[in-house]
């Protein structure tokens, strides 16, 4: 049984009289510990899928399951708990709380978790032991994203969702972040779903889901993923 399973997820937005399908019967499955990449051009609905997966948005129809739980049936409060305990989210623009230090930003997420990695430990792991008490504004983009990753991982989520995590970063820093994510996936057996429009990084994934015009166009399983270091774009 797959760890993540979507079946016929449809998301519609109403813009006046027009109904826009952001997702149209999207179905796919991802196994535990897999590094999955959803790739497609802008507006193909990949971020919407990720938001629905992360409990930030609800599908108009269709079902999806994470670890055998039907998340699509959750109410508002269950969704919050789902986000709280099961999901780690990484954004393009980091979304750190500017008024909190790196350590405090991580603590924000561990504060309420059932089982977590202490902030200092996880920050060390992402290589920020020197920057514990710095505010986001005092950190570079890569460092900020690493704080964001630390924040997402600290609470030991079931699923790590990344929305263009390297979009705002330079090539090397981006590569380093991707490596961190891939390593985490491999070493911690973490299920990672990454959304990007950059298909160049697809070889690093165990599974590549291609989307086009709100639909899945192709799902490709890569038996031998390439380490990030070896990928060039």
């Amino acid at each position, binding site marked *: 049984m797959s760890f993540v399973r979507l079946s016929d997820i449809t998301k519609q937005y109403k813009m006046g009289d027009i109904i826009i399908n952001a997702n149209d019967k999207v179905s796919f499955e991802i196994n535990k510990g897999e590094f999955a990449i959803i790739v497609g051009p802008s507006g193909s609905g990949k971020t919407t899928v990720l938001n629905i997966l992360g409990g930030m948005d609800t599908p108009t129809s269709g079902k999806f399951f994470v670890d055998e739980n039907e998340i699509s049936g959750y109410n508002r409060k269950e969704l*919050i708990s789902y*986000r709280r305990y099961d999901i780690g*989210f990484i954004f393009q623009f980091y979304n750190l709380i500017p*008024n909190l*230090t790196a350590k405090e930003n991580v603590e924000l997420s561990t504060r309420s978790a059932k089982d977590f990695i202490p902030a200092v430990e996880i920050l060390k792991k992402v290589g920020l032991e020197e920057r514990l008490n710095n505010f986001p504004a005092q950190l570079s983009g890569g460092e900020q994203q690493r704080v964001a990753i630390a924040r997402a991982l600290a609470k030991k989520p079931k699923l790590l969702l990344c929305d263009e995590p390297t979009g705002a970063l330079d090539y090397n820093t981006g590569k380093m972040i991707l490596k961190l994510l891939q390593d985490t996936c491999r070493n911690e057996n973490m299920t990672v779903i990454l959304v990007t429009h950059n298909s160049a990084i697809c070889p690093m994934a165990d599974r590549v889901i291609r989307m086009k015009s709100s639909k899945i166009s192709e799902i490709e399983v890569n038996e031998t993923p390439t380490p990030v270091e070896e990928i060039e774009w």
Partner: protein
Amino acid sequence: MKNVMLKNTLAEIRRTKSRFLSIFGIIAIGTGFFGGLLASAPDMRFSADSYYDRTHLLDYRLVSTYGFDDKDIEALKAELDGATVYPGYFTDAFINTDSGEKEVARVYSLDVTGENNPYNSLDIVEGRLPQSPDECIIDSGKLVAGYEIGDKIVFGGDEDSDIGDTLSRTEYTITGRFESSMYISDTERGNTTMGSGSVYMLCYIPAENFITDVYTQIVITSDELKQYNCYSDEYEQARDKLGDRIRQIADRRETERFDDIVTEAREELADAKKELDDAKKDAYAEIADGEKELADAKAELDEAGPQIEDARTELENGKKELEDGKKELDEAFSQIEDAREELESGKKELDEAKAEIDDARPQFEQAKKELDEAKKELDEGKAQLDASKIQLDENEKLLAQTKAQLDGAKTQLDQTKTQLDKTKALLDSTAAELEANQKTIDKSRAELEAALEAGYISEEQANNELKKLDTAQAQLNDSKERYEQSLVEYSTGYALYEQNLGQYNEGYAEYEQGKAQFDQGYAQYAAAVQKYENGLAQYESGLAEYEEGYATFLEGIKAYEEGISEYENGKKLLDEKYAQYLDGVAAYEQGVEEYENGKAEVEQKYAEYLDGLTQYEDGAKELDDAKAEAEKEFADAEKEIADAEAEINELESPEWFLFTRDDNPGYTEYGQNSERIKNIALVFPLFFVMVAALVCLTTMTRMVDEQRTQIGTLKALGYSNAAIISKYMIYALTASVFGAVVGLGVGLLMFPAIIIKAYAMMYNIDDPVLPYDFTIMGVTTAAAILLTVLTVYFSCKGILADCPASLMRPKTPKSGKKILLERITPVWNRLSFSHKVTMRNLFRYKRRMLMTVVGIAGCTALVLTGFGVYDSINDILVKQFDEISNYTGIVAYESDELESTDELQKILSDYGCDGKEIYQKQISVQAGDRPVDAYIFSADSNETISRFVTVKDRFTGEIYTVGDDGVIINEKLASLLGDVKKGDSITLSLSDTKRAEVTVSEICENYANHYVYLTDALYEKLAGSAPVPNSCFFNAESGDVPEDSRNKLASELMKIDGVMGVSFKTEVMGTFRDMLKSLLLVVVVLIVSAGALAFIVLYNLINININERIREIASLKVLGFYDKEVSMYVFREIILLTLLGTAAGVLFGRILVDFVIRTAEIDQVMFGREVHLASYLLSIAITLFFAVIVMLFMHKRLKNVDMVEALKSVE
């Protein structure tokens, strides 16, 4: 390009409706409140003014000590152009209310034709104006609510004045009710000198009912004055100018009228003098005639006198002779009478003796006869007694013989008995012996037989023995036989003895009987003998008596016969003497008759003389009386003339009194109320303006910040700073101009209306007239615009100075910073994570933090001020009347002195009250430049003062003693005098000429009016003379006079001459309470406004806060923060700021309360300075309540923040 900018601006407004509305709202509220409150006071006055103008409220009301005559009216009408003069009448009259109280009605005349009538516009509330003479219309005030149309009212006067002198009719039917601008207060009807001292009802009756010669009042209204607002200085100046003109006319007319009166009086006086002189002349002529006639008569009388006297002397001599003769005769007669009397008494004695003798004779005879009979009886009895004696003696002897025989028989019998008894004894011993022998023989025989049978003895021996025994037996038997024989003999003897004894006993009994009979007979005999002897003795004594009496009797007869012969001789002699006497009497009587005739003659003559004399005297007296009377009359007349002359000389000039609107009850009070509102209005809205500025500033700053990139782009495109800023200017100005228009539109109508309506509870002012005051509108709008321009300028200033390039870049997010608190590690480490975050956020946006605190503080302060003002005014009521003024009421005297307080005290004590006199007078007190009016309160001792007033310190509550070395003044007075301190000296203007400097010994708590407390002794020292009490304060033992007897007490007191008025503390308190009621509404307005303020400020701030931090909040939500946690993340700081703001607000509010109170306070009153705990708590609670409401709103908003949307937008 301009067009594009405008379009851009309009689009911007559409896009950011809520932002636009928030500026619009705060400006609307700010300007509305500011303008509204500012306009309230003018509108209050304006409403009143329009009411006064509409109803032609008098500008002057004239009253004169002599009333007004037609010339007065003409003069006024002729010389006061532009003013209308309405002569009229008024009087005060008693009415009886339903509850039986006697109350005073002020009755005005109403010219039914409407010509002489300023009141043709009395507001008829109900019914209609009177049309026929017996109708009236009454006021619609609360006091007379019980009357209805159709009821009848009867007016009455009091002891001093008859209402009939003033009114031709006293009963009127009510046809309606009116409101009058002369009496705007609902309850105050002014004062009167009648009854309880206050007017109870107002009433208009047709003028024809007034029958006084002169008009009693003149009402003057001026069209010129109508153009001025009634409470304005312009009005007062113009009014005073008119007053000066009236005063001039008054001065002239006073003199003219006085001259008229004096001239008329003098003419009358001259006539009277002439009349008197004529009358005098006539009277004295008549008196002279009378005197002559009298003199003639006197001469005649004087001659007749001596003649009569001579005749009288002659007569007297004759009379004396006669009297001597009479005396002799009387003596003779009395001698004769004595002798006759003696004779008569002797005769009488004799007759009595004769009668006695005659009575005694038959008695003697009868006694003799009885005595003889008795003698005979006694002799017969003696014979019988002797015969009985003989027989008795015989019987006695016979009885003695029988006795002797019987005694002998007895002796014989006793001897026989003795013998018989001896024989018996012998016989008995023989019988015993025989028995014993028999037994011995029997025994021996038995022994023998036993011995034989046993063989002890032989048969022979036995036989021998047996034979011996038989012999013994035979002997024995013989003895027995003899014994038997003897026994028979004895028995025969004994029987014989018994027989003889019986015979003896019989004989003896017979003897006893005989003896008894004898004894009885003897006793009878003895008794008879005794009786006989008694009778004999009686008889003998009776006989002796009789003989003695009889001898006396015989002597008496002899004496009687001698007496008779003596009497006969005396009688004869007497008769002779009596005849002589009668002759003498006849001679005397003749003499007397002659004398009487003479005497009568003289007496007649004398009577004639006397008559003449009396007539003369009467005449003389009559003349004297007439003379005296005439003189007295003349003297009276002269005195009258002199008095009249003096009166004319002393005649005072008529005095006109000018009353202005200020003398209308309630008029000034209303003005003061508007003044108070004005003062408050000046203070409060400042806050709104301040807060509005803050809100605008934050809102605009946020807006500019948000549009940073756009501004950069525009700048890069070459737009000028002015062009760029104009967008925001237009945006903000549009909002604030609209806000101001709407705010003022509503505020200028709403606030004055609410306040005027509040006061309408106490005053019958028309519906509010709310003119748009363009000054206020202009000023307010200009202030709002200026405010907006400034805020926009300040918001844009920083950004515009930046270069486009840096503007195009997203604003460097405000870096997190370590706050000061973090450096205090022990404290910081102790804080929980969320609190740390809160603390850091708190200090991240300092400006917003400040604004929130200020906004909330303003809200709390405003609410607290509302309550505080209410507390303060309420405290006047509570503290002044419950704690400081201890009296129940005051009786004010009309002049300085009441003739006697006995009656006053008696009436007071009848109602359970105890009064004490006080000198109380309003004087001017001065310490620095400014004189202040205050009341002197002087009493004989500190005890008296402390009975009615608690003189104490406001803070410590220490009770002060009013001593002889200094005065105690109240706090407000001290501060008005320029912060006079204890020990300073102040100057009291005790009279027009007397000023005295005195030391202030203490400063005491007091709220209403100003007082200078001192003792009479000190007053005397200062003024040179002791104060004359002019009022009497009193206390009821029960604490207060019951409501239903207050009026009765007051009218009883008012009846006393010299009492001007009576007031009760409770009633003064009532007026105060009404004022408080309307103030409460003002407080509510304040609180509601403050609430609105708090709401807008908080809403706006939180809104901005959320907008600014929307990504942060979305991130938290993504991290799985529950709704409550998200809200708390934001609210924690807001709550903290709210609490901080509330605390600051309480402090600030306290200062504000003080400030408002000092500003709003009028000079005569000190408001309470305390804000009650409840007010603090309520203010805090109300603020927190508003904050909670806003947070609930915002919680909903936070819940709905769309994470996806929020995170999508790139800064």
